[in-house]
Structure formats: C-alpha cells, structure tokens
C-alpha cells in the first residue's frame, strides 16, 4: 500500500522501516540527537507549502517520526534541508544523501564531526526511505 509523500502515514511507515533495520540499529548506536528534515515548497510540483519531518532518534532506534512545520524541523539538533524535488530524488535512490550534501543539493546544519562519524547510519536512513512505497503529489 502506498502512502502520500511526507504525510503522517509516511512518517509512521518510515519509522517502522528504521526500527526494522538491523543495519541502522548497529550504525546508530550512540546517536542521541533529534534530526529535522526540511522539505522546501515547490508549488509547481504540487507541493505548495514547506514541511518538516521531526525525527527523535536514540541509540539505533526511531522513538518518534512525525510531520510538522519547517520551523519544527529547524529546531532540531541537526537539520537537513532541500527542495521537494531533491528529497524525492533521495527517496527514489537517484541522489545519494551524502553526495547531495557534498554538492550542496542538501544543506546540513549541525555539528559536522558528529554527522561524519555517523555516515553509515545516515546512509541507512536514506535506504529506509526508499523502502516506503510513496505516492508523489506531482505524479498523482
């Protein structure tokens, strides 16, 4: 069953995928900070308002993943921002999140050494998003 991109149902499915992942459980050990994903608006892609994904990740487990405002996500310890199209590319495996950050396609805010230390965990989080079947607003 597909869920609408960046909806509450998507957030729940994403959380379940993270908690099903033995790779993330191992790679995320020691992580204890919140992560916010800012999905910037792209009205021409039928994504008219920015959204924020607020992730409470702790010691290899997703305690909560919820959809909120962009401001909610920006208040997290680590924030990754990108346009709706960029995040769609990430979810479709067309853009690797690490490469996206190095190229400036995704903007990162937060303590860099910590992020670099958890590269494997962040790659697995990306993998988890790709496992959630999604309906995209610009394709609906």
């Amino acid at each position: 069953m597909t869920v609408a991109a960046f909806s509450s149902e998507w957030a729940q499915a994403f959380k379940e995928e993270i908690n099903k992942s033995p790779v993330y459980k191992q790679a995320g050990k020691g992580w204890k900070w919140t992560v916010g994903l800012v999905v910037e608006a792209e009205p021409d892609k039928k994504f008219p308002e920015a959204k924020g994904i607020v992730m409470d990740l702790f010691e290899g487990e997703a305690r909560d993943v919820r959809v909120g405002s962009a401001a909610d996500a920006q208040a997290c310890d680590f924030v990754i921002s990108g346009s709706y199209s960029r995040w769609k590319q990430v979810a479709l495996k067309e853009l690797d999140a690490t490469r996206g950050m190095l190229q400036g396609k995704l903007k990162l805010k937060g303590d860099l050494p910590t992020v670099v230390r958890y590269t494997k965990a962040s790659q697995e989080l990306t993998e988890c998003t790709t496992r959630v079947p999604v309906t995209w607003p610009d394709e609906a």
Partner: protein
Amino acid sequence: MHNPGARDLAGRGVTNPVDYADGNEASAFAQLLGGLIEANVVSHPEKLKDFHSLKARVGILVTDIDEAVTLDFEGGHLVVRNGLEEGRDVTIRADAETVMQLSNVKIGFAGMPNYLDATGREVAGKMLTGKLRIQGLVGNLTTLNRVTRLFSVA
C-alpha cells in the same frame, strides 16, 4: 554550516583558523571540509599541534561527483579553495563514500592512523584496489598522517 567569526583556539591565540579563498562562493564541499577541520581543531586541543606544524598544499578530488578542493595548511591557518590548484604536495582521489570514510579512520598507537580495524582495513583495501589514490605519498607520509589526524572524527 560554518561560522567564520573570530575565535581563540584553546587559548593559543589563533583566530579565524579557516578562511575560504572563494568567500561566499565557496563550494558546499569546501565548506564541509573546512568546517570539519575547524570543529576538530576547536574541540580537540590535542590536534592543535598538527594544525600549527602543518605546512602543505593538499588536494582532494571526489571522483563520483567531480568536486574538488585545495587545502592550504599554513602553520596554524587553513585556506580552503574550490577546485584543484597547482603545486600540491599530496592529492587524494576517491569517491564520496571513501572520503567520508577517511574521516572515520581511528588514530592509534603513537598518533598513527589505525589501518587494522574494520574501517582502517576497508580504507587500506581501497588503496590497494585503486579506489583510493594518493598522489605524492612518497616523501609526504608525515604530512598525510597529520592531515588524517586533523580529519579524523573517530
């Protein structure tokens, strides 16, 4: 990503440890590497010795995204430039994943990079298979070790 404000590194009187030659046009990769080294030096005073003694021009090319930077270590000051400049002492060529992996190489006995644990072995394996290429290694091993220590977040 990077706060260019003046600061005093662990009381050593070093201000603005990192500058960007391209200013606001500094690439995301340049800002990431510069920010990483600055954060490492600021939060790990034991890395200051390396930072102060390192005088070298180091290039890093990320092969799969065609992004490159030149790091000019000037003994207590680093200038980060977009692209590869001439006159490099050491040039590292690898894909994005490997470049990130380099920062996860642990520093072991006598301050030497540890190539014996899982991450170290993987990095060493990439050198052997040519996925990680280091030009100028001969004669610049000390420089490379210092750079590795400054990069390391492990």
